[in-house]
């Protein structure tokens, strides 16, 4: 593969292809990942090229998918599991939190479970119930799991490579409404570390921290704010567990103001953890409380309300203004 502009979904597809080519132990498992190539075509063409033994259409049972992936990992395989939509990961939640997350510790380090659970997540595509949720906090709270989310094609490609190479279970949240956004992927680049944040835009007055689908919104907000003379720094956090608190701290020590943006409900969400920790780390630096922009404490609404529910440009700018007003 040469340097190419690829949609995010295609970047993931190329990344999976490379993993299948490189390591015979890599397997793809999930519902409709075979001939159909997944409902988002992320696994398009892979079963055709690597066969049904490596790209496996599973029975419709998420607990079974993750549970058997654990068994395959115990046998030396590296399964990459696809959950069809965010809202369908919960039947597998028990296997993920009680088995996948804890088996390495339970075995005193003798067992490793290099499993990636890919979850297309978030809203903005006009879908029906259970197809637009952002459950990352429910995994980040659980020790033993790593949680990441790329925001662009290059990260999609590389972070998935790194997640597959990781000996820890990684919950890989894919920003489904960005699947069609194109970005450059350089297969020969030297990627950044999986769990490090990236400064997506340099600024001086305030920091916006986001990951996955919200990075684009934050960059747009920063551009809009710039027109009003406000210099906004945007951090693409990339990793939720662990968070790169050092990077956030460094930025906040410079800008002295922080707004965290995510689609997931604010209550017990990522913003809470970041606000709590950064306030502790930067107590004397902060000119304003860390503000949070995110989903409401309500089920994800029907499609015709999602524009009101999702944090958009204006809600982010509103928070920026409120933070700057302190």
């Amino acid at each position, binding site marked *: 593969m040469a340097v190419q502009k690829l949609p995010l979904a295609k970047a993931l597809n190329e990344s999976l292809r490379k993993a299948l080519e490189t390591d015979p132990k890599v397997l793809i498992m999930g519902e409709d990942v075979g001939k159909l190539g997944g409902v988002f075509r992320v696994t398009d063409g892979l079963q055709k090229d690597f066969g049904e033994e490596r790209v496996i259409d599973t029975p419709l049972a998420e607990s079974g998918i993750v549970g058997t992936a654990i068994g395959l990992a115990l046998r030396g395989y590296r399964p990459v599991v696809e959950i069809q939509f965010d809202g369908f990961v919960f039947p597998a939640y028990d296997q993920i939190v009680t088995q996948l997350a804890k088996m390495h510790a339970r075995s005193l380090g003798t067992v490793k479970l290099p499993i990636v659970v890919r979850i297309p997540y978030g809203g903005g595509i006009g879908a029906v119930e259970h197809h637009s949720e952002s459950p990352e906090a429910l995994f980040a709270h659980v020790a033993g799991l790593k949680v990441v989310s790329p925001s662009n094609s290059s990260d999609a490609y590389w972070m998935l490579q790194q997640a597959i190479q990781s000996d820890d279970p990684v919950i890989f949240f894919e920003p489904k409404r960005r699947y069609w956004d194109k970005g450059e992927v350089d297969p020969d680049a030297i990627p950044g570390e999986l769990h490090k944040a990236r400064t997506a835009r340099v600024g001086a007055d305030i920091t916006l921290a986001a990951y996955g689908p919200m990075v684009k919104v934050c960059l747009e907000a920063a551009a809009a704010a710039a027109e009003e003379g406000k210099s906004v720094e945007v951090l693409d956090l990339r990793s939720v567990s662990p968070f790169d608190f050092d990077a956030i701290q460094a930025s906040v020590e410079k800008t002295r103001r922080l707004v965290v943006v995510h689609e997931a409900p604010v209550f017990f969400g990522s913003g809470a953890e970041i606000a709590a920790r950064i306030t502790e780390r930067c107590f004397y630096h902060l000119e304003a409380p860390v503000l949070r922009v995110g989903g409401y404490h309500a089920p994800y609404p029907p*499609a*015709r309300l999602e524009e*009101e529910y999702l944090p958009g440009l204006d809600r982010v700018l509103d928070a920026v203004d409120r933070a700057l007003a302190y």
Partner: protein
Amino acid sequence: MTVESTAARKPRRSSGTSSTTSTTGSKTGGAKRAARTKKPETAQDQSRTEPPLVQLLTPEGERVQHPDYDVDLSPEELRGLYRDMVMTRRFDGEATALQRQGELGLWASLLGQEAAQIGSGRALRDDDYVFPTYREHGVAWCRGVDPTNLLGMFRGVNNGGWDPNSNNFQLYTIVIGSQTLHATGYAMGVAKDGTDSAVIAYFGDGASSQGDVAESFTFSAVYNAPVVFFCQNNQWAISEPTEKQTRVPLYQRAQGYGFPGVRVDGNDVLACLAVTRWALERARRGEGPTLVEAFTYRMGAHTTSDDPTRYRTDDERAAWEAKDPILRLRRHLEAQGHADEAWFAQVEEESEALGRRVREAVRAMPDPDHTAIFENVYADGHALVDEERAQFAAYQASFADGEVK
């Protein structure tokens, strides 16, 4: 004591042999040597061993007898079933069209499954209770749910637009299999109340693999709950054929849980009615759960988002077209002289009127009020929701002149 299942000694595919299933260009096929000896069966082998279906009406419209199941319907009742199926198909077609026109975000068509749904739906009494998936538009029709109500969720104005208790028809359930447990619990309650109502839970061949469905079998058997599990095996779970869910016919699943399973011709509305009625009667008599597998076919795409050309052939669809549920009843009505051209034309007209009504109703369907986000999250209220609702209102009000929100 040993029980051998029909498939026990005939594995459908031997996972140890590398190239049996992946035919095209396997680059790095997983298995290194073929230690396992059994040859996998082909799809042909499988269909040869398919068990016979309960059938009362052949694809040609001929009325046949079955030793265990029967119905005795008046011409009017037969015409009623025909009308139900036509109306349902017309409604379904209109919804598909509305999706293409952008009026709906998505539609899950029941095309081809009319007999399974009308047959089972018409077996129900008013006091029975239905737990559907997302595709039971025909059953909803039988329950008297206004068809336009079904569209709210697909249009994106709500997540289910009717009061389940108005028609004893629970909301559509998207997470597959979940509703089988709700049905079982409801049936446990019916039994506790000492009434002789029954409950029916719909689910698909794909859903049959979910742990929840197995647990509903266990609970209903242990508590002897008056519930009928009605599995529409439409051969596909999105792109996965039924053989990805089971290696023996699904109706046999029930046996291991201690209740009977029946496979019925799902394109035969009379057989579906007869078998469902029998199962419901068992439930009423306190004989517990039954599994009915309606062997049918999803003629359309999984939903309007799906592209079935990627995974199945036209031949298959064509073969099932010959078993069309509506056509066969029409042939029967015609052969028996139960209905004439004028009557069929009138039903056609009625169905067109339904199509129009649905079209108009959908187009007129208002978007929900923005604050609906915060409504009905809790029955008794919640301080945080109140706080967020107020913040939201203040924020929206800050765009006083109807600007961007």
